[in-house]
């Protein structure tokens, strides 16, 4: 008989705070007042408490449920990234939902459940927890993507995301099953021990391949990326921001842990495959982004390309490579959430302003917003002294030192291609006359706060990167011992 594992909820504390806030929001939704303004505030408070809690737990490692849940520095680093992503999404949502007439308690509840799932994923020490976290995160996101019921594209996005997500989860589960069959465990450490004892086990390698398919879907790497543009475009923009940042960070958290802890023995195998995936992902993402005129779709392809860059760090491996990925995720979260946030605040009379033409001459009428969006785009290009530059510098630096010169060359060439479509938006904002429909800036205090936080983030990370890069390296170092 299997003895029941000791219950130690402390290791789940930050995730539980977020989850509990979600339940609280659902309850508050049932009682008066009928306006939903305060629910966003409650959700934000829960996230901020979880964020502060995570920061205060730094260097206090806890393991629970027989090492199924690990609250180490690595998990805490991701908790912070995820909480920032969720907090920005909530801030962006508050006025956005009212504007679109879909204020509802379940929106914030689902957002919080999804966030809790992401945090669980980051602290997973067992493939089953990975599965649990992915499902908790994804199921909530499927619903959130379709929340704008009056818009056909939103429903389509939700449907596609759900169908393909379920398909991908099938691969993931099958991979977990094969690895369990080969090693007799789903725990990372025990898988590592078993895999090291029997190198080149066919079942393990097939299982690894199928796991990579599942993760590839969640991080949207080629060829499992095709859902991303349709979902990013159709989903409410605040949800898109969360899918593009939080869910990606969480999936990366689990992926790095699985690859570097559980399947480290197979590193020669997976690093070659990921080399190719990284090269194809960044190239495809950037090249296709050029042809996009819809900003949300463009940012979707751009986010695919950024996944390619981050895979470079994973291929490079070691503390520098993995640390660079963590730093990049932090930088990328601020930058991408900020870019989506800026787009969300611009509106046409007949709906959202998402075509690049809508942004022509924006700098003249809304100089502050145009400058802010411009800075986010420059950070995405990787122009110093913004966060994106430093992030790329660390990523490619680690690749060069690990000897992956060609991959670095491909990455740098890709950065050059990417400049084209990011700068095109800036050219429209600053050097074109306004055309066609008048766009206006939606007044939103919460949205302004979100943009200000993201802006401070990218400037701070760009000007004084060393302390944060140091934290990232401290977080990954124990994994690679």
């Amino acid at each position, binding site marked *: 008989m299997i003895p029941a594992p000791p219950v130690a909820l402390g290791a789940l504390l930050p995730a539980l705070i977020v989850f509990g806030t979600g339940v609280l929001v659902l309850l508050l939704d049932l009682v008066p007042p009928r306006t939903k303004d305060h629910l966003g505030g409650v959700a934000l408070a829960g996230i901020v408490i979880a964020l502060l809690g995570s920061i205060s737990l730094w260097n206090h490692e806890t393991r629970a449920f027989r090492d199924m849940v690990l609250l180490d520095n690595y998990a805490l680093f991701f908790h912070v990234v995820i909480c920032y992503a969720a907090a920005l999404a909530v801030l962006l949502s508050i006025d956005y939902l009212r504007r679109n007439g879909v204020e509802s308690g379940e929106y914030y509840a689902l957002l919080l459940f999804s966030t809790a799932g992401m945090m669980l994923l980051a602290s997973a020490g067992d493939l089953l927890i990975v599965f649990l976290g992915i499902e908790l995160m994804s199921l909530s996101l499927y619903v959130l993507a379709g929340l704008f019921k009056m818009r056909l594209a939103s429903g389509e996005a939700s449907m596609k995301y759900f*169908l393909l997500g379920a398909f991908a989860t099938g691969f993931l589960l099958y991979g977990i099953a094969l690895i369990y069959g080969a090693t007799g465990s789903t725990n990372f450490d025990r898988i590592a021990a078993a895999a090291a004892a029997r190198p080149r086990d066919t079942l393990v390698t097939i299982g690894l391949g199928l796991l990579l398919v599942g993760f590839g879907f969640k991080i949207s790497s080629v060829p499992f990326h*095709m859902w991303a543009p349709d979902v990013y475009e159709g989903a409410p923009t605040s949800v898109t921001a969360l899918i593009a940042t939080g869910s990606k960070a969480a999936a990366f958290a689990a992926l790095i842990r699985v690859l570097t802890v559980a399947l480290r023995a197979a590193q020669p195998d997976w690093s070659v495959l990921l080399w190719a995936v990284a090269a194809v992902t960044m190239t495809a993402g950037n090249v296709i982004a050029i042809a996009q005129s819809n900003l949300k779709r463009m940012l979707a392809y751009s986010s695919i390309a950024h996944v390619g860059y981050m895979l470079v760090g994973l291929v490079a491996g070691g503390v520098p490579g993995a640390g660079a990925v963590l730093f990049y995720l932090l930088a990328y979260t601020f930058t991408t959430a900020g870019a989506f946030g800026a787009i969300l605040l611009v509106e046409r009379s007949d709906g959202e302003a998402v075509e690049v033409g809508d942004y022509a001459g924006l700098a003249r009428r809304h100089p502050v917003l145009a400058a802010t969006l411009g800075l986010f785009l420059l950070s995405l290009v990787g122009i110093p002294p913004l966060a994106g530059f430093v992030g790329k510098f660390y990523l490619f630096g680690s690749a060069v030192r690990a000897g992956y010169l060609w991959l670095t060359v491909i990455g740098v060439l890709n950065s050059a291609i990417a400049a084209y479509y990011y700068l095109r938006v800036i050219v429209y904002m600053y050097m074109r006359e306004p055309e066609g429909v008048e766009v206006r800036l939606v007044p939103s205090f919460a949205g302004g706060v979100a943009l200000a936080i993201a802006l401070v983030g990218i400037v701070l990370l760009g000007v004084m990167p*060393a302390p944060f890069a140091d934290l990232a390296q401290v977080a990954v170092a124990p994994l690679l011992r």
Partner: protein
Amino acid sequence: MSTVWLIPAFPLAGALVNMVFGRVIGRSAHWIAVPALVASFLGSCVVFARVWSGQAFTTTLFTWIVAADFETTVVALVDPLTGVMLLVVTGVGMLIHVYSIGYMHDDPGYARFFAYLNLFVFSMTMLVLAGNFLLLYVFWEAVGLCSYLLIGFWYTRDSAAQAGKKAFIVNRVGDFGFGLAIMWIWIAFGTLDYVAVFKGAETLAPATATGIALLLFMGACGKSAQVPLHVWLPDAMEGPTPVSALIHAATMVTAGVYMVARSHALFERSTVALDVVLWVGVITAVFAATIGLVQTDIKRVLAYSTVSQLGYMFAALGLGAYTAGIFHLVTHAFFKALLFLGAGSVIHGLHGEQDLRKMGALAPRMRVTAMTMTIGALGLVGFPGLAGFFSKDEILAAAFFGSRAAWALLLAGAFMTAFYTFRLIFLAFFTGPRMSKDVAHHAHESPRVMTWPLIALAALTVVAGAAVGIPSEHGTPFARFLSPVLPVHEGEHGGAAGVMLLVLSVIVVAAGILLAWFMYMAAPVKAETIGQPRTVLVRLLLNAWYVDWLYDRAIVRPLYALSVFLARVFDLGVIDGLVNGLGRAVVWWSAGLRRLQTGYVVNYALTMLAGAVIFVAYFLAR
């Protein structure tokens, strides 16, 4: 003491506020900018009190860049030299900020002006606080940027825009050397930290030291307008006059002097480098003074005078008399800022007139300006008891015991300084009026907010020299204060020779003033006769020895022709063809790949399945 960071933080905050909210703040911009400077100045006083006892400390703000074995921190080195520089930058800066309230009163870019001015003070204080060469370089460029922005402040005027560009480009030449020097320091020492580098310099190979020092000096030549990179400073007078006073006289242009003094440990290792510094300084001092003799624009006279005085400072550094150089830097900041602000007051009173030929007889109309400017002029020429007397004669004494040829040239320079300075004073304030009746009628004294800074600077000019510049057996009090940082010059003997030198220089200065009096005061002068090229020599001087012309013919035009050739033939034909072809190929691919995105879930799922098959097949094949 991490509070030193407040000194640059206040002006930075002021600059940001005025930049972002400038449109709203408008005419009230000085309520942000001036208090920021006052706070910064008070902070500098506190820091100065800390270093008064001669102690030095470093304080690290954060680790800035870590890349492999390269690590740089944002660190401040605070020692007596830093303390002196901070006081000059924030003190003179504060007075000039106040003055600007009056001078820029009617300008539509009022908030923008104060934002830039604050940004400059932020950059300049960071420059002198910097504790390593990389940080120094960053803010070296930042003050250059502010200089560019402020020279071209009236950017709709073509000459201003051109002058801004010229300043930037000429400085690039010097900065190229500075950048190389920093890389070389990194190679030679493995660090860019001041303390470690200067400690390591003691055992540095002389050839390496010469190379590094000369490249550093190249950067100093650009920033401090030394021959042959002096050409940008006179043109920089296109900027508003407070800018000329703050950036192009008192502070930024002295950054080169500060940098060389700061790195004296590197220069000491190489006699060649010190000789180069000395002779570039001497040549510049004399060369610029000759041009100043004939200029007719009031600000250009002062600009050439600044170039010349910077030459004196470098001459002092080249002689190893570092404290004398820094002392002259300080006193020069006072009286040259005063002269520029006085000139600004004259220009303001005459509604924009800068031509000495159209001035005259302003003394009764602008009493405060005339009096303070005369004090400034006496300070500059070295009238006994005033600031310039102590600082300049210290340099002359060092030259006398170091190199007689340099001394003779510098003495000739002092003669010319006396002449052109009093030529300016006489022509502007005392000779008969040469402006139109209308202008003369409207000529007025400037408002209090502009004259008070003049009075404060005049007071400093009077007391600064006597307060800290009187030499004793162990050097001046100023030198003793700086002695933990800068070695006290050994050649400064007093005695009979010293007294004789003093008397001689006073005679020379008096002769210069008298000559100016005879030429412009003894008999009434006509406007047409001033600055007319009657002889070849005057024509040569009026055209500043044709240096600009020479650069244009020898460098600018051939380079331009080459780049036109490259642009037309090589770039359009070869590179553009390649790039456009590549661009078209990428766009074509993009359009093609885009078609794969059909929107059908089935297709997406099939693609995923294909991916999964490839993944598994790969792992099976391994």
